[in-house]
């Protein structure tokens, strides 16, 4: 059992991967660049780590800090939002994200029920998903156990009923949360100051407005080099160049614009 099967299984169950030596060194070097005041160099190093090794909450957080130091609030908020997918309750992250929003004057529209939103966003969508999947698996296992083995002991039977009730509650709560937060799969962040919402997906089309960097937008259909976007609460919708916006969840953007294209 000394094969990598166990760590891999662990990673599969936990949705994460074990640490490697290379990224640790690169991460340390990037941090030193940041502490030396080379924010641009640090940001580039963090980007390289993410590209080579995949997303890590600490790297995304530090990348957001680097961009914020550079005054690039769009990429900073994007990095923070991505870090929030992994560590949704990290107080450092939430504090710096709020600072970035304030600096960029990109304030999200509050929803109609703030208390409900606090509950819904306490867990990330990934955590809600695991809660739903775990609850469903528990219910299925209990169903199999009760169906096949009949649970002869009364105490065991009562415990099974309690577990089934809790799993059902968790399943309903998680399913509701995922349903109410389904629009987050299409969230994007405006990256540049010059990002302009246009009437049609052409560079020369009539400009409808400039949402500003760091603004949260709903990404719609994609046509060529443009996304159809809608800004919540601003009644502004139109086409935004792909180089000016990035999806928070990368799987939304199958062919993301590279950093070179963005430049």
């Amino acid at each position, binding site marked *: 059992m000394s094969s990598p099967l166990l760590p891999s299984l662990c990673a599969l169950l936990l949705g994460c991967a074990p640490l490697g030596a290379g990224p640790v060194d690169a991460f340390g070097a990037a941090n030193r660049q940041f502490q030396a005041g080379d924010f641009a160099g640090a940001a580039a190093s963090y980007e390289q780590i993410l590209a080579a090794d995949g997303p890590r909450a600490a*790297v995304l957080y530090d990348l957001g800090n680097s961009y914020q130091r550079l005054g690039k609030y769009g990429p900073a908020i994007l990095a923070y939002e991505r870090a929030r997918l992994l560590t949704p309750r990290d107080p450092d992250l939430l504090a710096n994200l709020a600072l970035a929003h304030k600096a960029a004057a990109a304030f999200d529209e509050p929803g109609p029920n703030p208390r409900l939103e606090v509950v819904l966003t306490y867990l990330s969508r990934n955590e809600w998903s695991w809660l739903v999947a775990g609850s469903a698996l528990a219910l299925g296992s209990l169903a199999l156990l009760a169906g096949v083995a009949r649970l002869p002991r009364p105490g065991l039977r009562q415990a099974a009923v309690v577990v089934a009730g809790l799993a059902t509650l968790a399943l309903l709560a998680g399913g509701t949360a995922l349903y109410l937060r389904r629009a987050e799969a299409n969230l994007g962040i405006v990256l540049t100051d010059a990002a302009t919402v246009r009437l049609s997906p052409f560079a020369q089309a009539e400009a409808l407005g400039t949402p500003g960097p760091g603004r949260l937008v709903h990404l719609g259909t994609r046509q060529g080099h443009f996304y159809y976007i809608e800004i919540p609460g601003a009644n502004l919708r139109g086409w935004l160049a792909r180089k000016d916006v990035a999806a928070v969840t990368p799987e939304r953007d199958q062919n993301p614009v590279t950093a070179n294209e963005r430049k």
Partner: protein
Amino acid sequence: MVSALHYHKTFLQGVRIIAALIGLAGGTVPRAAAADVEAQLDRDTVSVGAGARLTLKITGGKAGQPEIPAVENLIVEPRGKSQNYQWINGQSSSSITYNYVVGSNEPGDYQIPAIEVAVDGQKLTTRPLRLKVLGAAASHPPTGLPPNGQAAPAAGGEAEDTSGKRFGFLTVELVDYDRKHVYVGEIAPVCIQAWLPADARVQLRSGVQPEGKGFTLHNVSAQPQQTHEIKDGKRYLVVTWYGGISATKAGKYPAALSVDATVAVRDQSARPPQRRRTGSPFDDPFFDNIFDDMNAAVIQKEVTLKSDDQEIEVRALPAAGRPAGFTGAVGDFKIESAAIPSNWKTGEPQQITARLSGTGNFALMNAPEITPADGWKTYPNKGEFTAGDVASFSGTKSFQLSAVPRQGGAREAALAFSFFDPNIGAYKTVTSPVQKIQVAGEDIVDAPPAPEPIAKEPENTAGNLVAQHLLLTRRASLVPLVARPAFAKMLGLTAALGALGLLGAWLRRRLGDPQRRARAAMEQATRVALQAAARCAAANDVPGFFAAARLALQQRLGLLWNQPAAAITLAEILARLPEDSPVVRLFREADLHAYCPPTTGDFQPDWQPLLQEALATLTPSAR
């Protein structure tokens, strides 16, 4: 063949006689209140060889045949007459209209003198008419007249058409334009006409479409007008659209447009040769044409009518004299109204409304600007256009500007709008009346250049940033589990586990069912008893056979009646089953052999079938 020609000639004479009678009847006009004679030309200018329609209308009396005075080189050809009766509230009125075609082969100004008509013995005269014959066109005779005024094809008749326009053609003309050029950005109103043979059946299959890329077509009228006109001696059904064309680049471009149509015309090439004239009053080509047209074959063709490639010059807007506030409007505009609030406060926006009217390209018209512009910041909107004609060439456009004053004090303000007037070829600026306004508050001083980047300097938030995270966390996916295929697999696994659990519970319940188990035990006991009975029957063991048979029946009856098998007696059976039941008969036989065995003791062959029959009757309905 001779007979057919004779019949045709006789028929024509008959028709002519009927027409003469109608003419005589037409001459008898009922009395009317007042007699009147009026002559009218449908146009006052024709080209050489073309004709104008002259109508002479006589109302309110009995009139004789009018005579048109002869004019040198002017050809006048009668085209029949029409009669109209009216009877309103006991009052009758009537009129006769004589039609002529007038033209000439010589250019010049002609005057048709007053026409004298005798109505009820009274001589009435018309006013003289003038007709100008232009020499530009080819020297064709007027409608129906060949050169020298001899025998001619009738109105609407087609000579051999070698121009390729037999099925019609399309013309595009600038409307009411003295100039032959347009300017970039100008929407020039055009009249688009489809000229179709008057005697043709026509179905338009498309609207007007631009053929080239030089011009853009705007607001073509949806409901075209239809008229009948004569052009170059031919009658046409003319379908007319109005619209506008504009160009974005200077140069000379063909105003090529097209219309798809299905046109059915009579094949005039199949006409019989010209008849020899006899000189009689009814020997008129008009009658020939009626019958010739009726007999001619019809040719139907799907055609695309295209305008001649008439070139229109597009000139660029001059750079000289271009006002600073010019935004591309081309036309002739004026400020209808401008409402500027009297009291303002620096930094606070208010609405200014303005309405501009005129003719031209309203799509390129932006809102007027406040003048003097110093001390104002404005946020104009797109405006709302109200068309004044079907082609949206004229109209009004209303604007609402949000304006913010940046300087306090008493000031004067007006709205100014600059445009290019293509008629004079120069820029114009129109200004609304100057208004005195009062702006309260202090002047707003502009921040130093590029204030936005300064506001976003990282130093503003750097001091408050929470420090870096130095511990590298685990790698994880940004894609939530719900968006990954594993989520669906997990839910599928859950469903499979639940289904397995349900299957297990069902199997367990089925296996542990006491009724089912009792049934199985009974079946087993019955099978054993029947095997014993069979063995006894084979061994001629009569008591053994009946004991085994009784046991088998008791087992089955006990299951059916939910009683222990041992408690099933003959009395119980007699209480539930009829007397002639095979079960009763077998039980009686078994009791007989148990308690009073016969002396012979041989096994009877009908006992075995009786046992089978008794078992067969013990179905669930025997409960």
